[in-house]
């Protein structure tokens, strides 16, 4: 299936072909992104790494920030 992703850290938009059964964690692993350092959103809702992705999803990968 096809998904669109935006990676905030690198300010990049990507179109990706992924397996039909892919979960958020599979996507992050394929992009070599540590899942503890990011938040992932779909349709303005945060989703956890165990959530299944759907065809034509628009996914944003946002960096966790910590400075004060």
């Amino acid at each position, binding site marked *: 299936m096809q998904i669109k992703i935006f990676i*905030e*850290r690198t300010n990049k938009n990507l179109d990706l072909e992924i397996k039909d059964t892919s979960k958020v964690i599979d996507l992050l692993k394929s992009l070599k992104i*540590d*899942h*503890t*350092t990011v*938040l992932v*959103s779909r349709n*303005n*809702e*945060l989703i*956890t790494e165990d959530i299944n992705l759907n065809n034509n999803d628009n996914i*944003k990968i*946002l*960096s*966790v*920030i*910590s*400075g*004060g």
Partner: protein
Amino acid sequence: MRYQKHELLSFIGKKQKFLEEKTVAIIGLGATGSTSANLLARAGINLILIDRDVIELDNLQRQTIFDELDIGHPKVIIAKEKLSKINSKIKIEAYLLDLNYSNIDILLKANLILDCTDNMETRFLINDFSIFNEIPWIYAAVLGSNAMSMNIVPNKTPCFRCIFKEQESLTENCDSVGVLNTITNLISSIQSTEAIKILTNQDFNKEIFIFNIWNLQMQKLVVKKNLDCKTCFKNNFEYLEGKKYTGILKLCGQNSFQIIGKPLNLKNLHKRLSKSTDAKINKYCIYSDKFTAFSDGRVLIKANSVNKAKSIYSKFITN
């Protein structure tokens, strides 16, 4: 008269009196904390201020209540002095310490806690304390031109641990990326506004708020409770119980670490150090270009690794 402009607002009005009866604890008096403290003091809210650090030259770019004469002095002491001049009618308690599981009960008097810290370990501790004692808190963080904020109100919202994971270290921090000085003011204004809503028992934001001030991009993301959350579902308060306490902490800014050791006699230590270093002493701490040492045993060290920090600690403090 002092609060007339608040009292004129339809959504505050007589609720201004509620604010004057409340106490907010502010953890961390860096860029976000000092600005939030300034706003809340002017709004008539009593404050508990907690910070472990001293003011340095590179803080002045964004930490708006400090000036050049304050360099080398503890942030919490200077902030209390300045805020007392801004509003002498409020009560301000100031604690020069590192907030950890053994002293966090000083927050029990607070109606609300503002997270203005620079590390996730302290946020997980505040979250444990908040859920255990049912005291709300507001997460706020900045990096580059980005900011995030989220209200955590026990029994009404997901908790911090529902959303955020423990991590070894973030790949980006203020050392590598920097902080634009306008984003800290913006997130402090949002944090303080949400504080006023919560303290006056009004509807508040239940989403996570993300803003990039450079691109003027704002996102509000829906967050859901994690039905497997260690803290708010399983009631595992391991940070509050001290099980996660390490005693050594990477701080945000200038490759800094904090090591907590035995209490120090500052006069004796300074006498010894003055033979080999240019360390200076004031009534709160000893400070040099490599470290700042406090009498309670905390030492802030400039180093680019944990091992280097330990080496400096060993060379200057324990020898």
